[in-house]
């Protein structure tokens, strides 16, 4: 391959410069003797004489230099550096913990500081940029995260017991598992039900223009109600129903709990779902439909063999958007006693315990990312004509 002169990759160099600056100036960890006392912050340079932090900054600056004339070799080297840094980060945290937490502090809690968060965030952005530049597939991109995950797993299971986040988790590991379960159950039920309801609604909309106009109007209106207000609005009617209808009460329908949460999530999920399914079905190339009819396919055959399979990737796109949205919205449902990971967020906010908030928020982000990736990959596979 001929060495063509490349212009500098500004994205790469500025991200990396910002990461280095954050790493060397902001607070990396904080140590608190117990849950109540606020922690003492430490910058990375203040830990273990600062030399490990400086040592880590050297390859970061090397990537900035390599980005000046980006070629394949340099980019691959940078990728290696970034992956190594991501894997080293938890180990550095473990080392810092070992040094800063003395045996006379059995209740000590280690908090992750802004420098570490920012570094993690910026390095992941750099990883995405490098993956794109090197033309790697999505699947390979996920593999790039393996060293980092291994590093965290190792550090968390062996050395990071005083990490505040982990202490919060250990204090409520049973509660955590059931919260994840409740969260997923609510999201699954809402997305599944909205897929069914939306499909039926779209079929009716395609038949009658009247239904189409009214349907979109109502759904658009629903979407504008703030989520908290919708939960509140459902409180009275559902409480009334639960009190009057025995079998509903047996099912657990009341003003608070899963029933209003489910209904509100369903309401919010319907618009993106309906819109995507509708557009997906309408936007199939009319020439393809025309030729299907012209060839002598019956109405049903045109729909099932041509329109639906061609629309499926866009439908799944709708499922993806809806799922990610529902994972986030379910957090709010904790407020009306529906459980889920939101419980930790609101309890944490109430107790001013940020680590507990994180215990709820981080898994929500993780779930959203995983759902996004899985459904995205599925929709990619279903593109017409294979992944050409």
């Amino acid at each position: 391959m001929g060495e063509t002169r490349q212009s500098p990759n500004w994205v790469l160099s500025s991200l990396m410069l910002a990461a280095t600056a954050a790493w060397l100036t902001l607070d990396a960890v904080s140590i608190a003797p117990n849950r109540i006392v606020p922690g003492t912050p430490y910058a990375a340079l203040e830990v273990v004489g600062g030399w490990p932090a400086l040592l880590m900054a050297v390859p970061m600056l090397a990537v900035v230099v390599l980005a000046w004339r980006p070629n394949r070799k340099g980019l691959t080297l940078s990728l290696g550096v970034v992956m190594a840094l991501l894997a080293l980060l938890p180990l550095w945290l473990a080392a810092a913990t070992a040094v800063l937490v003395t045996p006379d502090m059995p209740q000590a809690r280690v908090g992750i500081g802004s420098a570490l968060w920012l570094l993690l965030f910026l390095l992941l952005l750099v990883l995405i940029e490098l993956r794109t530049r090197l033309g790697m597939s999505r699947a390979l991109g996920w593999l790039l995260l393996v060293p980092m995950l291994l590093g965290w797993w190792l550090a968390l299971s062996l050395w990071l017991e005083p990490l505040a986040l982990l202490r919060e988790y250990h204090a409520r590991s049973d509660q955590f598992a059931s919260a994840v379960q409740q969260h997923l159950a609510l999201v699954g039920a809402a997305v599944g039900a909205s897929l069914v309801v939306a499909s039926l609604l779209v079929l009716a909309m395609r038949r009658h223009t009247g239904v189409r106009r009214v349907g979109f109007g109502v759904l658009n209106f629903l979407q504008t109600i703030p989520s908290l207000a919708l939960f509140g609005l459902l409180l009275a009617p559902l409480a009334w129903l639960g009190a009057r209808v025995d079998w509903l009460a047996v099912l657990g329908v009341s003003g608070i709990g899963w029933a209003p949460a489910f209904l509100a999530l369903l309401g919010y999920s319907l618009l993106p779902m309906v819109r995507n399914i509708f557009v997906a079905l309408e936007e199939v190339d009319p020439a393809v439909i025309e030729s299907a009819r012209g060839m002598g396919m019956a109405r049903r055959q045109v729909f099932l063999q041509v329109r639906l399979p061609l629309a499926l990737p866009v439908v799944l796109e709708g499922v993806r958007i809806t799922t990610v949205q529902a994972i986030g919205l379910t957090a709010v449902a904790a407020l009306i006693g529906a459980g889920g990971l939101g419980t930790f967020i609101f309890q944490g906010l109430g107790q001013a315990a940020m680590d507990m908030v994180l215990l709820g928020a981080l898994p929500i982000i993780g779930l959203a990312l995983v759902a996004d990736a899985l459904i995205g990959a599925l929709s990619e596979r279903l593109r017409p004509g294979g992944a050409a």
Partner: protein
Amino acid sequence: MIELFDVTKRFGDETAVDGISLRVEKGELCALVGTSGCGKSTTLRMINRLIEHDGGEIHLDGQPVRSFDEVALRRRIGYVIQSTGLFPHWTVARNIGLVPRLLKWPKGKVRDRVEELMQLLGLPVAEFADKYPRQLSGGQAQRVGVARALAADPDILLMDEPFGALDPITRATLQDELRVLQARLHKTVVFVTHDMDEALALADRLVVMHQGRIVQQGSPVELLREPANPFVESLLGGMDRGLKEAALIQVSEHMLPLGPRLLASERIPYGASLSQALSVMLWHRVDRLTVVDEEDIPIGELSLRRLLGAKVP
């Protein structure tokens, strides 16, 4: 045989097709020509009932099209459209086998038929059977479109500007192939186009439409000789008409036997058209050409003087 009796179609207040009558004989290629919006496509799509006619009658082999189930009707009529309408999620082979499968042919028979058609249309099976439409060039895709239309061996073929989206060279190639194919298969073809040269080159019968009515119909030569009105004349190319007519005539039709005179130095194959011969004469500034056969052996001569004399007896 396709017959239209006083057929009318209205869309709201607008009359798209206004009482046209037409008869396409079995094995005939009939071209519907006209500017866009003249009702030619609508006429075509009323034959396979993609559009239902409002008035008059359309008959296939003497039976009104309304007497057939519309789905069954379409399965016995081949249909080709400009944008091919190939199913992007199906392979070439599956696309071509569509109608035979709809007709519930046994699997082996469908496969054999698909391979036969791919060979007929110059698409090597090994190379193309498993490709998807997006992997094809425009010309290849349209060949697949034609193969798909021919799959269940229909007697009737409806073609709606099938080559309209292709570049001129590919279009000319496919026109030639269609001519060869038609000489072999003798389908009853209705061919919609706005390209008069295409119509002149392919059609046995030309039907010129304007504002929903038939302005004139006849063989290409008849139309060139006696255009019914200035509209048809301009559609036929005005002053270029002479050359267009010459393009339809083979050199062999006006060839004279070799005389005692010296052979003319410039040669022309006997299968060339008269317009090509005239072009050669103009280029070399000669009034005689030696006509040769495939082996380049002189078999006669072509004389400009006799040509002019022959036109005005």
